[in-house]
């Protein structure tokens, strides 16, 4: 462990509205335009002006800096950030010349630039804490929390003069003046991280960003169709959070971080600040029309907005799977079986990150009586497991649990209603899901999932009552299937079970083509599992015109020269493109040689992307260069994962007897196209089988098999060994290689 860390790759990020707000210049100011002009003038040269540096180091408080609460010797982390002297020089020079506007703006920009470094610093601080198994008890800022002398301690301890050329004055001010120094008190309680600035303790009462008293209550009118509805915003609440709270379904794929653009709204009345994220997403015209990302919008006045509901409630959940070995009597009349009012039933549930699937099984015959699917409404907290985890850590743990419980209760009652079965007749409810979904359902703390060494709280087979797990009355027992690790969860174990990995002598490969790209290779004696962060591209995420597999999504593409013929799900007017559409489009572009083997589009399409179709409103649905890069990353992760697993297992590709592709994307995917883009090795072409929802299949098998499913699952977990690819040299090499289209 090093005793100090220089922050690398620091970049200042300015928010114009913050800079202007800091000097009392709001959009209603009569001189707003002049200030903006001058701001942009300075902003042009920002790269040259700002020289951001930062350093963190562990130390202990000296006698001189000790406080009553924190005596000398208290373990602390000193953190110093600076934007250098140049920008401040500009301010001083401008004032000297009588250009007060420029002088004041340069100063405010320097402050804003300095604040913008804070995130990077906190990120490093988190890492340092994780490494040392400690937490942060409090943040101390001189002079109000602690003597200015502490800056001298920090200066000496971090050798600021030698390392960063930072001086200190006799008044203990760090020089350059736009340098900040924070002191973080460490604690052995590693759960605590109170490193953020606390406005309520800050004496700077005139600060324009003081965030203590209630923000002026703001009302937002949501206009949809002919109707209007008013919602009021709470303090510190983004518009997106308020909309979600009020029950609007917003698919925030990135979890409200301003990255996915799925939460866009249009401001019809009122002034809404433009965030830097907005500038990244919208054109100048769109901004003028009022388009904003609701996750980044903290309205300061009443607004009227509208938005297109990105209705993904019809997300097609795949509940199909190979049934041959599980329910041989598919033709049984379900209703006849269900009418037996004394009979007992089980329910199998697959909790996917995006969708949920439920099946009712009659206990006597093991037949599927009814199937229901639904959207996982936790999606509003982020599309992938990482953003859900983060949301849980950020205080939404209870909300996430309630969300999934409500979805499960809904699904169960729909299932019962459809088949006319009474809740009392349910014997067991078995659930298969990935580790994060399991943690969120069972209300476990997700913090350890996200940091090294990524230890789950509990992934053993877990039994509970309906009230405990689902928050509903009933006598049925609830079982959550066991997982292997944080990254390879119960859904994969269920998939292995469904695909007979417990019986096979032949070595088979199971690949779940989802965001987490879990895969398993082996037989009844030994299984190696891993996960590769494939990202959301297969589900249409991070693709400029991307969308889920819902009606109107382009799912198939054929090219004749540069002319595209597309097919959409349910043959509706095209709205966007889903994962299979992206794969098909790319494989076609390759075939037509409009894309080279490095993934570069023909120059003609470089700027605007390759047009595939038009929406009914005449807007282009295109595949951009960036979209192709996203797919490259995803497919390379999958391919490199497969190659590495095979290498580690010590076999050759021809020895893999069968390749099972799991998941909705794998089910719809044209495997020839997947091979064409190099996602799956060509050698596998004749042995690939799409198994659909193998998790659900495994849960059903657990409930219906004659053997003890619990024992088999336990054995599968026991023979499984996880490989961590992130540190694997071979994986990284394979990954780079698999990025190409060759």
């Amino acid at each position, binding site marked *: 462990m090093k005793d100090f860390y220089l922050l690398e790759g620091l970049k200042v990020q300015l928010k114009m509205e913050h800079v*202007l707000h800091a*000097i*009392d*210049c709001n959009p209603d*100011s*009569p*001189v*707003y335009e*002049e*200030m903006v002009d001058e701001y942009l003038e300075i902003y042009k040269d920002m790269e040259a002006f700002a020289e951001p540096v930062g350093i963190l180091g562990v130390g202990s408080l000296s006698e001189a800096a000790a406080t009553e609460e924190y005596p000398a010797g208290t373990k602390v982390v000193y953190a110093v950030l600076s934007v250098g002297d140049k920008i401040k020089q500009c*301010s*001083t020079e401008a*004032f*000297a*010349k*009588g*250009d*007060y*506007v420029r*002088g*004041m703006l340069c*100063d405010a920009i320097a402050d804003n630039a300095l604040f913008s470094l804070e995130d990077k610093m906190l990120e490093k601080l988190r890492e340092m804490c994780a490494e040392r198994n400690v937490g942060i008890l409090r943040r101390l800022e001189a*002079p109000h929390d602690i003597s*200015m002398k502490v800056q001298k301690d920090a200066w000496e301890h971090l050798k600021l003069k030698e390392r960063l050329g930072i001086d200190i*004055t*006799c*008044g*203990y*001010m760090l*020089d*350059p*003046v736009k340098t900040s120094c924070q002191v973080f008190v460490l604690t052995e309680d590693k759960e605590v991280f109170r490193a953020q600035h606390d406005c309520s303790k800050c004496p700077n009462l005139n600060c324009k960003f003081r965030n203590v008293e209630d923000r002026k209550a703001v009302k937002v009118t949501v206009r949809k169709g002919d109707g209007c509805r008013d919602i009021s915003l709470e303090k510190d609440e983004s518009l997106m959070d308020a909309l979600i709270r009020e029950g609007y379904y917003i698919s925030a794929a990135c979890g409200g971080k301003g990255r996915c653009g799925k939460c866009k709204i249009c401001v019809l009345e009122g002034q809404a600040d433009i965030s830097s994220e907005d500038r990244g997403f919208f054109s100048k015209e769109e901004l003028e029309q009022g388009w904003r990302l609701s996750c980044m919008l903290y309205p300061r006045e009443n607004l009227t907005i509208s938005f297109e509901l990105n209705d993904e409630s019809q997300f097609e959940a795949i509940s199909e799977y190979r049934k041959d070995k599980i329910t041989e009597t598919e033709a049984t009349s379900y209703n006849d079986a269900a009418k037996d009012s004394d009979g007992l039933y089980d329910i199998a549930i697959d909790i996917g990150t995006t969708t949920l699937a439920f099946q009712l099984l009659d206990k006597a015959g093991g037949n599927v009586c009814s199937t229901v699917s639904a959207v996982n409404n936790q999606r509003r907290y982020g599309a992938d497991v990482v953003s859900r985890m983060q949301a849980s850590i950020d205080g939404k743990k209870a909300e996430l649990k309630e969300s999934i419980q409500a979805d499960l209760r809904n699904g169960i009652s729909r299932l019962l209603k459809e088949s006319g079965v009474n809740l009392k007749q349910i014997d067991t409810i078995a659930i298969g899901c990935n580790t994060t979904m399991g943690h969120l359902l069972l209300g476990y703390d997700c913090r350890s999932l996200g940091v090294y060494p990524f230890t789950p709280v509990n992934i053993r087979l877990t039994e509970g009552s309906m009230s405990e797990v689902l928050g509903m009355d009933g006598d049925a027992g609830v079982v959550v299937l066991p997982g292997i690790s944080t990254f390879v969860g119960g859904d994969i174990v269920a998939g292995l079970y469904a695909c007979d990995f417990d019986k096979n002598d032949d070595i088979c490969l199971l690949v779940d083509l989802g965001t987490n790209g879990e895969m398993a290779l082996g037989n009844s004696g030994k299984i190696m599992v891993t996960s590769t962060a494939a990202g959301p591209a297969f589900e249409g995420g991070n693709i400029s015109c991307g969308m889920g597999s819902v009606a109107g999504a382009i799912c198939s593409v054929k090219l004749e020269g540069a002319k595209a013929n597309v097919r959409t799900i349910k043959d509706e007017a095209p709205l966007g493109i889903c994962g299979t559409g992206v794969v098909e489009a790319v494989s076609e572009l390759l075939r037509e040689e409009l894309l080279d083997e490095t993934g570069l589009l023909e120059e003609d399409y470089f700027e605007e992307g390759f047009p595939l179709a038009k929406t009914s409103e005449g807007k282009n649905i295109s595949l951009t260069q960036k979209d192709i890069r996203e797919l490259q990353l995803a497919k390379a992760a999958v391919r490199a994962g497969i190659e590495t697993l095979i290498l580690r297992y010590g076999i050759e590709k021809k020895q893999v007897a069968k390749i099972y592709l799991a998941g909705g994307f794998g089910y719809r995917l044209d495997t020839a196209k997947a091979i064409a883009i190099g996602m799956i090795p060509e050698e596998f072409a004749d042995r690939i089988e799409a198994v659909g929802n193998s998790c659900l299949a495994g849960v059903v098998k657990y409930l219906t098999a004659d053997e003890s499913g619990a024992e088999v699952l336990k054995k599968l977990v026991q023979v499984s060994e996880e490989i961590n690819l992130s540190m694997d040299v071979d994986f990284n090499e394979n990954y780079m290689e698999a990025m190409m289209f060759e």
Partner: protein
Amino acid sequence: MAAEIINEISEWLQKGRAKNVKALVEEALEQGIDPKEILNEGLLAGMMIVGGKFKRNEVFVPEVLVAARAMTAGITILEPKLVEIGNEPLGKAVIGTVKGDLHDIGKNLVAMMLKGAGFEIIDLGTDVDADTFIAKAEEAGADVICMSALLTTTMPYMKDVIDALNEKGLRDKYVVMVGGAPVTSDFAEQIGADYYTADATTAAEVAKAAIAERK
């Protein structure tokens, strides 16, 4: 005619329109209007109005800044003429942030408003020690010494400067003004300063009044 154009200069200055102010000052000079009148009745009068509005919360910092920028534009045209006719400023002020302290925004705004009140400003910057304050004030023949401090650790140095003035027997020669976030009028009194003001506009008004009293 003269009154009209001077009034216009003041109006445009209050709106912060540097270009218009510059053009009108040039025009006024061409018409042979006394540069002193252009300065005092046009530029400075306009600036005082903006300062007053700022004090009453009728306008905010940005409006004052653009007005002051317009004032600079006008003065730049006027300056050679003023030198030519040997115009004396209302007074001279040395200003700086005291030793150990690098904050300068407050100090810069005070300098701006003093300039708007008709003072000639000798800005010593930040981290200024007692010897520099005194030497520069003597050299320029200043009337006012303005000190700024933003920290409790640097605030006491203001007393060091005043003590040094006393030692040299120069204290009564100058109006000494202090300001900055932690400074109070009690503190100003304790260390033997003449005036404490809470904001830049008041500082300019007080300095102007103090000079009038002396002369």
